[in-house]
Structures are given as structure tokens and as C-alpha cells.
């Protein structure tokens, strides 16, 4: 029972913040960027599983690598983001499977939140709260940057600084997210709640509130269904999220 509660706390914290962060990523048209970032963490997850340390810790350096790649991609080439997805996805998975113990492939690909320790839960919750506060602080400026960098600069906003903070938040959320839903499904954490929220909202407050709530609710029910039916939690979380999205389509404003 204790284990179940820890999983729930972790899940709700990561799910909620991912949804919140996703609203900014969608505005920036990089909701899918969490995809390649997640895939790229697979070698890191493989290492963590192999040597028995925390998955998020293994994933983090690879997320940073991914962020640098995205940054280089934006500056150095005019290739669209899909190209990055294709390149990074394949390489990440390929490298991971060179040394990933095959019996642990499921954990790496779709995550496993069922065995989180108390210590991990505390760290995850604190990090999630920290990211939440940072996003809240940079939110208005980021929206303006997402709308138009020229306007933002004209309003004397330091665009580089805010983009850097924003990418830092993405890195930490992806590293936390892979523990819960694995390298394959991370994009879903930031993309799906946000899309559902956009379908239903009329202003920023509703948009962010709904995205955060949908993220948290998806995690809650995903982990609950895992407890009840014993399917892996990661895919269940994503499927609950998708269900919310389908319902939001019906009530789209």
C-alpha cells in the first residue's frame, strides 16, 4: 500500500508539471521535441539498469545532449523538427539495444514507477515543485517569446536567457518522465494533456489549469488501473490521457 501511494505521489507530481510545461512547448511548436529527447535517453536508461542506479540520473546527461542537438539543429540547419525526431529516435534506440539487458527492455521503453523508493519520491516531488515554480515565473515572458521574438525583444525581454531556462526545465521533466512512462512515451506526458486543454480553454488561466489537471489525473488513474489490472503503468497513463483528449474533442469550443 505504501508503495502504491509513493507511486501515486510521483506520478501526480510529474504528470501535472509535464502538462503545465507542455502548454509552453505546444506554443513553441515543439511539443514533439520531448519525443526524440525521450528516445535519446534510452542508452542512459540502459546504463542505469545495467549498473543499478536511478533511471532519471542515467537519462539526464542524454537529455542535455539532446537539448544541445536541438539547439544546434535550430541554429545550424534549416531541417524541420521531424528530421531530428527521425535521426535521434533511431540512434537512441539503436545505441540502447547494443547493451540493454533484454529482460529489462520493458522498463526502459515504457517505464516502471511501481518500485519508487521514499527517497526517490521526495526528490521527484521537490524537483517537480521547483520546475513548476520556475515555469510560473517565466510563463508570461515565454508566451510573448513564443508569439513573436521581435515583440519580446522590443519589450526588453532577454530571449536567450528565457529560452535557456525553458530548455533546462524540459531537460529535467524528460529525465523525470522517463522513469514513469519510459523512453518511448515521454512525449505523451507533455503533448496530450496540453492538446486536450487547448480544445477546452478560452484563456491562459483555463489552458494551464486544465493541462496541469489532465496531466495529474492521467497519472492518477493510470497508476490506479495498474494496481487493479496489473498492466504496466506507463502505457496506462498515456491511454488515460488519450481518452481525456478524445472526450475533449467532443466538447471542443
Amino acid at each position, binding site marked *: 500500500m505504501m508503495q502504491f501511494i509513493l507511486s501515486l505521489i510521483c506520478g501526480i507530481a510529474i504528470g501535472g508539471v509535464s502538462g503545465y510545461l507542455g502548454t509552453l512547448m505546444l506554443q513553441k511548436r515543439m511539443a514533439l521535441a520531448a519525443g526524440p529527447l525521450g528516445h535519446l535517453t534510452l542508452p542512459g536508461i540502459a546504463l542505469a539498469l545495467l549498473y543499478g542506479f536511478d533511471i532519471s540520473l542515467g537519462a539526464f546527461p542524454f537529455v542535455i545532449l539532446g537539448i544541445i542537438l536541438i539547439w544546434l539543429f535550430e541554429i545550424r540547419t534549416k531541417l524541420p523538427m521531424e528530421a531530428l525526431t527521425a535521426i535521434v529516435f533511431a540512434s537512441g534506440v539503436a545505441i540502447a539495444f547494443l547493451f540493454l539487458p533484454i529482460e529489462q527492455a520493458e522498463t526502459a521503453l515504457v517505464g516502471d514507477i511501481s518500485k519508487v523508493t521514499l527517497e526517490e519520491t521526495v526528490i521527484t516531488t521537490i524537483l517537480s515543485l521547483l520546475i513548476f515554480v520556475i515555469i510560473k515565473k517565466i510563463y508570461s515572458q515565454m*508566451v*510573448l517569446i513564443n*508569439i513573436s521574438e*521581435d*515583440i519580446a525583444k522590443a519589450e526588453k525581454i532577454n530571449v536567450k536567457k528565457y529560452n535557456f531556462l525553458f530548455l533546462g526545465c524540459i531537460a529535467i521533466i524528460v529525465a523525470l518522465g522517463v522513469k514513469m512512462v519510459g523512453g518511448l512515451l515521454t512525449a505523451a506526458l507533455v503533448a496530450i494533456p496540453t492538446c486536450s486543454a487547448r480544445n477546452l480553454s*478560452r*484563456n491562459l488561466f483555463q*489552458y494551464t489549469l486544465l493541462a496541469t489537471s489532465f496531466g495529474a489525473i492521467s497519472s492518477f488513474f493510470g497508476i490506479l488501473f495498474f494496481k487493479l489490472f496489473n498492466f504496466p503503468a506507463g502505457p496506462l497513463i498515456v491511454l488515460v490521457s488519450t481518452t481525456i483528449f478524445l472526450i475533449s474533442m467532443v466538447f471542443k469550443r
Partner: protein
Amino acid sequence: MTKMPKTILKVKDLNVELDGQEIIKNLSFDVKKGEILTILGPNGAGKTVLLKTLLGLLHYKGEIRWAKGIRIGYVPQRIPFIREISLSIRDFFKLKFSHQNFGAVIKLVGLKENFLEKRIGDLSSGEFQRILVAWSLINDPEVLLFDEPTTGIDIGGEETIYSLLMRLKEEKDLTILLVTHDLSVVYKYSSNVLCLYKGKVCCLGKPKEILTPKILEKVYQTEVKFYEHKH
């Protein structure tokens, strides 16, 4: 006798390079308070680059001197993605970190106060244009910089946007810098016109005095016929 209006912008020997290409070459001009300066020129002449440089968005060589402490309002040419965001007009205005009464601002551009709760994505393009004007008016600017305010608006709406600008100019004692390639706007509204051709000034002065067919031929090359037809 009226006093000479003060100079609010002085540009001297301005040079702007983008990706190793010279976009603006040795540009010099002044703007006096209360003026409506139209920056005219064909596509690629450097009009938008000039405006962005004046705002301090691009690196440049030379001198750009705004009057001390001047407040500038800016509306860019396009804001392509804004309609995809769940943003009410009030949210949009709030992004300017102002304590101003948004109800008053939105009334200035001829919209009702209850518009503030509308989603930007639900506005017509004419309403959206007005909202952008309102946005630029927040924090009481003394100068407005407009980049092609007519883009994407039908003729009926276009007329109102310009007459709106003129009304605001009178009410708020504004100075306006306007980028356009629309000649009729120049004749009707501007006090001065600056013609750009390949980043260089090819005319500067009152429209009726300096926009000779010869100058226009230089600026527009093939579009002179359009001019003759209109006037």
C-alpha cells in the same frame, strides 16, 4: 508663431548587415515630433529591417539617437502563431506587464470592453488588427512603429485602420513611423516619406513634392503604371 517641433529620432550613417549581406547602406534621416513618416519601398528594400533596427532588435553600425526616455510602441508585420494559443485579449495585454486599464485601451481602438474576454483565435482579421494597435498603445507610447498595418486586411478594413491611426495620432499627440508599399496611403496620410531602394534613400521629403514619376520609377520600376492610374 509656432515653435519648431523637437527632433525625436536622429539616424546617421546607418549600416545594417544580415548574414553578410548589406541590407541598409549609409542611411541618414531625422524624425520630428508629430510627424507621420512613411517608409516606402518595394519588397526587399529593407523597410522591415530598418524598423527592427530602430527598435534595437538588430546589430548596426552608425548612429540611432532617440529622444531621451521616449516610449515606443511597436506592431510587427505578422504574428503567425498567436491565433493557435488559448489567449484571451486580456491575457495578451497582460503580457505587457502594465497596470493600465485595458478597458480604456480597447475602447480607444473602437472595440467594446467585453471584447477583452474573447479568444484571440476567434477574432476577425480586422478586429485582430485593431487589437494589435491597442497592444502598441499600452503604456502610453509617444512614438508608434507600424510594419505594414494593412497586411491581410480587406480594403474596407484597411481604410478604418488608417483613419484609426490618424485619430489616435490627434488624440494622443503621437509620432508615427509607418512601413508600407501602398502609395495611396502615403499621399493620404503621411507628412513625410522616405523611399528606400536596395537599402539606400532615394527620396526624403513631403510626398507631393518629391514623389515624382521619375523617383517612383526608380523605386518601383514596373509599378509606375499603378501610380498613374491612381492619381
